[in-house]
């Protein structure tokens, strides 16, 4: 019995420690991104741009390809039901609304968590193992400013952009189905999508994508800093950065979807 209680206690403590570590990193990053530059401490724009290319631009092909496929799948599945009611016209609405509100941000987040979140963890973790983080600190350079802030800035700017691309690719997937299966023209499909979408659909998706970006950066970097014990530790942290960030992304997604639903 005490063993069970001890187990629960240890797990809870571990979880709390993780949460407080994540919170601590978030607070430090926010300071070095939004406060310190105005005190004349500067920002590493060069490496932020470099990170934007790595995390944003290089993710374009895979994000748009996956979103295109998901948009197409959504159109197939939607039409399967809607055509029973002769409502094939609404496939455009279904694809447009689900991509912008939900799937665009989510697919982007999952791809980025797999591509960039893991690479953040591996990069920082390797630097930790090879004492490079210590070397930075020993020089009096802040490791959060040098390593986390550029990634954070890049993600804050790139996640909404990637999400928009994902929305568009998904809708394009639906369009292909509309043209070849529902005998719509391109402009008909686009008009139908435009009629169904309101600005709020897109904006809530973009708000979500920002939150997802923050989660992925924070979990990836935190896991990197938490690495201990050589190459094996780097591997473990890389894996858990992807698992934890996807889990947290979906939790946050649930929270925000509910919030947007009730505040509509």
């Amino acid at each position, binding site marked *: 019995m005490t063993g069970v209680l001890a187990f629960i206690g240890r797990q809870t403590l571990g979880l709390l420690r993780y949460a407080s570590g994540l919170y601590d990193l978030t607070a430090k990053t926010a300071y070095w991104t939004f406060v310190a530059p105005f005190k004349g401490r500067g920002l590493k724009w060069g490496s932020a741009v470099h990170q934007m290319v790595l995390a944003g631009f290089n993710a374009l092909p895979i994000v748009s390809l996956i979103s295109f496929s998901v948009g197409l799948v959504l159109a197939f599945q939607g039409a399967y039901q809607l055509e029973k009611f002769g409502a094939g016209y609404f496939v455009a609405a279904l694809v447009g609304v689900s991509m912008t509100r939900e799937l665009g941000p989510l697919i982007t987040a999952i791809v980025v968590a797999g591509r960039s979140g893991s690479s953040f963890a591996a990069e920082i973790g390797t630097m930790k193992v090879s004492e490079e983080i210590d070397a930075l600190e020993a020089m*009096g350079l802040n490791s959060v400013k040098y390593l986390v802030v550029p990634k954070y800035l890049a993600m804050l700017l790139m996640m909404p952009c990637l999400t928009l691309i994902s929305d568009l690719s998904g809708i394009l997937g639906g369009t292909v189905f509309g043209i070849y299966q529902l005998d719509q023209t391109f402009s008909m499909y686009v008009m139908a999508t435009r009629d169904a979408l309101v600005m709020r659909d897109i904006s809530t998706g973009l708000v979500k994508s920002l939150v997802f970006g923050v989660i992925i950066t924070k979990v990836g970097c935190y896991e990197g800093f938490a690495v201990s014990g050589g190459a094996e530790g780097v591997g473990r942290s890389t894996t858990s950065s992807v698992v934890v960030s996807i889990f947290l992304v979906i939790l946050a997604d649930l929270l925000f979807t509910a919030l947007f639903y009730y505040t509509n």
Partner: protein
Amino acid sequence: MAHEFDGPMIRVVDLVTHYGERRILNHVNLEIQAGETMVILGGSGTGKSTLLRHMIRLERPTSGHIYLKNHDVCCMPEERFNLLRRKIGMLFQSAALFNSMTIEDNVALPLRELTQLEESTIRIMTRIKLDLVGLSGVEKYMPSELSGGMKKRAGLARALAMDPEILLFDEPSAGLDPITAAGIDSLILKLKQAFRITVVVVTHEMSSAFTIADRITVMHNGEVIAVGTPAEIRASDHPHVRQFLTRTPDDERKDAQAYLRSLTQSNY
């Protein structure tokens, strides 16, 4: 911090540190004078590297204080300590070069980030530091293209970039062949003569310790067991110091009964 001051450059007072439950440093007291070379000698796991890491605040103590030029390292705000850190260079055991940058960029990094110098000046200073450690012509190489000894030298050039007053070495000869290790030793001696730098070296290499040291501190199980000039240490009759000097292994299995008990007993 330009003003002159009296007293020791580094003063460690009653330092206690734990890793989890395990006590690493046990009431360590130590004074290192300005301009002297102090070698901290001890076996693996005696806490000598931990002590060194405390001096540049990579670890926080459980209790006790470290004073660098009379500034308390443990309680200083980050901003002010970072100013102090500029005057401390550290060479890590693995050299800790940034693997994503060339050797030149590695050495130039502290200059670029912490000073307002012109890029052309920084380049010249980088060359000078690399020359100083005997590494010219490798500016454009990546750290992975260098041998262990060259990496150590490059790490030293980076540690010297800001013209430090204190140089900390963590196991400078670890993983190097004897010739290369001797090369690093003579480099430390050269630097010590050329500049009036306070040097702290953590090592378990006795020959290296006796070559470079002004004074030696011997550590055992997280405690300082002897401090003195190389001659004093050689003459010491402390059992652990003697054991270290004569390279006698620990007595394994002193008591057969106790050994048997430890096998049958469960520890948890």
